């Protein structure tokens, strides 16, 4: 378990992290979401030791992080960077060696990774000659070359074309399946919704929600329903305890007030004509996000 424990940090007078705590479980993809400036990058930098925390600590397998442990972390910073004049392969090998690999191991992993990321034929080219999307793939390789035990990736999908997103997602899932905790931040909620097993939501420097995605959904689920029936919307509006939030021809989405009986409503609807569908609506991540960050 990779645990962030009561971490606070200020820059000057501004406190950017307030008592931040959450855990990233091995073998799971954890999405880290928050608005710009919410504190995602600062948290990740502290996890990697690039920044110091004012208070609190980060632990891995119940022990405070040391540089030796961090050597086995894979990190992709928000601000991307590579040596523009170095060739792709030299660069990845070098970064692998900085993480303590032997030259031969670094070479072998580099070749395998570049092939996996469809960069094999370009291994000898200088990074500055690549398109931005391909540079992004090299960046992924830089984070993965040393077979990290833990992955911390800051916005790994920004700047990737949809095809590359699929490749990268595949690689990350492999790592998670092999038992690594994978933490990735993103402001693209649809991507996070599709990928993550667990979710951490941060706003204004404090954690607003954390846990398995499905639990969060269930927990924040409003008494919201969708119905598909002829003339449903117009009829629903007059029912007590019903607030229509969306209507679209025969389909309507509505919230029920506390204590209102959904089954009674369904029976009433059936007496008026055929009902094609009726059921509760699970909130989207965007809706949960909006609710917990307000």
């Amino acid at each position: 378990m990779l645990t962030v424990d009561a971490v606070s940090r200020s820059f000057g007078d501004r406190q950017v992290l307030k008592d931040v705590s959450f855990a990233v479980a091995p073998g799971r993809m954890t999405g880290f979401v928050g608005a710009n400036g919410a504190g995602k990058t600062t948290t990740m930098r502290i996890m990697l030791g690039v920044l110091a925390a004012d208070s609190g600590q980060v632990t891995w397998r119940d022990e405070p992080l040391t540089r030796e442990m961090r050597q086995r972390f894979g990190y992709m910073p928000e601000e991307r960077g590579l040596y523009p004049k170095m060739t792709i392969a030299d660069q990845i090998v070098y970064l692998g060696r900085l993480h303590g690999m032997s030259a031969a191991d670094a070479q072998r992993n580099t070749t395998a990774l570049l092939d996996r990321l469809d960069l094999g034929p370009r291994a000898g080219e200088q990074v500055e000659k690549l398109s931005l999307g391909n540079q992004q793939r090299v960046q992924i390789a830089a984070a993965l070359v040393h077979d990290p035990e833990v992955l911390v990736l800051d916005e790994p999908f920004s700047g990737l074309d949809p095809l590359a997103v699929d490749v990268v997602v595949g690689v990350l899932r492999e790592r998670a399946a092999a038992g690594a905790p994978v933490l990735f931040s993103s402001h693209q909620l649809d991507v996070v919704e599709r990928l993550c097993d667990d979710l951490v939501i941060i706003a204004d420097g404090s954690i607003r929600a954390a846990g398995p995605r499905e639990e969060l959904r269930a927990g924040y689920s409003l008494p919201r329903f969708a119905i598909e029936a002829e003339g449903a919307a117009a009829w629903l509006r007059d029912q007590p305890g019903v607030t229509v939030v969306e209507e679209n021809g025969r389909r309507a989405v509505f919230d029920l007030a506390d204590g209102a009986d959904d089954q009674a409503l369904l029976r009433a609807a059936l007496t008026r004509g055929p009902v094609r569908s009726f059921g509760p609506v699970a909130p989207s991540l965007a809706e949960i996000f909006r609710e917990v960050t307000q």
Partner: protein
Amino acid sequence: MTTFAAARLVAAREIRVKLRDKTFIFSTVFFLFIAVASTVLPAVLDGGPTKVAVADSTAAAALQRAGLEVRTAPDDAAAERLVRDGDVEAAVVAGPKVLAMEEAPSDVVGALSAAPPVQLLDPDAVDPFFAFMVPFALAFLFFITSFTFGMQIAQSVTEEKQTRIVEILVASVPVRALLAGKVAALTLLAFGQIALIALVAFVGMRIGDLDPRVAGLIGPTIGWFLPFFTLGFIMLATLWAGVGALAARQEDIAGASTPLQMAVMLPFFAVLFLTDNEPVMRILSYVPLSSPIAMPVRLFNGDAAGWEPIVALALLAVAAVVFLGVGARVYEGSLLRTNGRTSFATAWRSRPTAG
């Protein structure tokens, strides 16, 4: 991985990149060319002993004894013709009279006249030409090397900052390993370049048949110059790295490094213009910023006692340690501040990273 192992990896990359860098290769070749030109060319251009034409055999014997190249002419008129045609530089005709085109050939005159006995009161004094050239060359070498290599250190630090790769590096290895690797690599390259130039100059002096007295002085001078050079270079190298870290973009380096440029330039010009001012030179040869230049000069001129360079070296070593600390703190304090130029004060106060 230890900090040392990490620093070695960083240094190895730095050296590999530099050895492929066209600017570096060009500057090395350029300096080597200068070294060859200044040691071998004078001898080549000198063209050997003066040629003199003579008809009289007694005079011919005297001239030959003086080591001149003698050509025997059938008569005085023929000897004069040889001078006018430019086949010889001078002729000795009846009288005896010396003929030459536009300049009196002092060696020919000397060979024919009875010189009064000469007693040299300071036989070890150095030829004024060398007395100026050697110190100037050493001062220039230190100045240009610490300046250009210093700039390269700053640029290489700024490059990592500007391209943002620094965050990956800092997440993998200690900041001090990055700094130490870079400084070690560039020091090694600078030292290598200087040693190569010294070697070429030395071989050049052998080929050029330099006055053995001067050669005997240059040897020890270079021997002292190398430790002064190395310590002086390391002293400044970390500060250059700090300056590079203060800048966020290559364009900022010039501004951020101005004080440091002054610290390199002023001692150079001070030594250059005040070489003859003994008390000032004595002070300069102890002040750490100027001692790498001033002390070898005083040694070459025979003005310094045997213990003096050792004291100056010790002072330089102390200064190097202090400057290393300052440079490292500024480097660590500003390396991750990628938004615009960092001020010295901010960098100084900034908290280092964890672990």
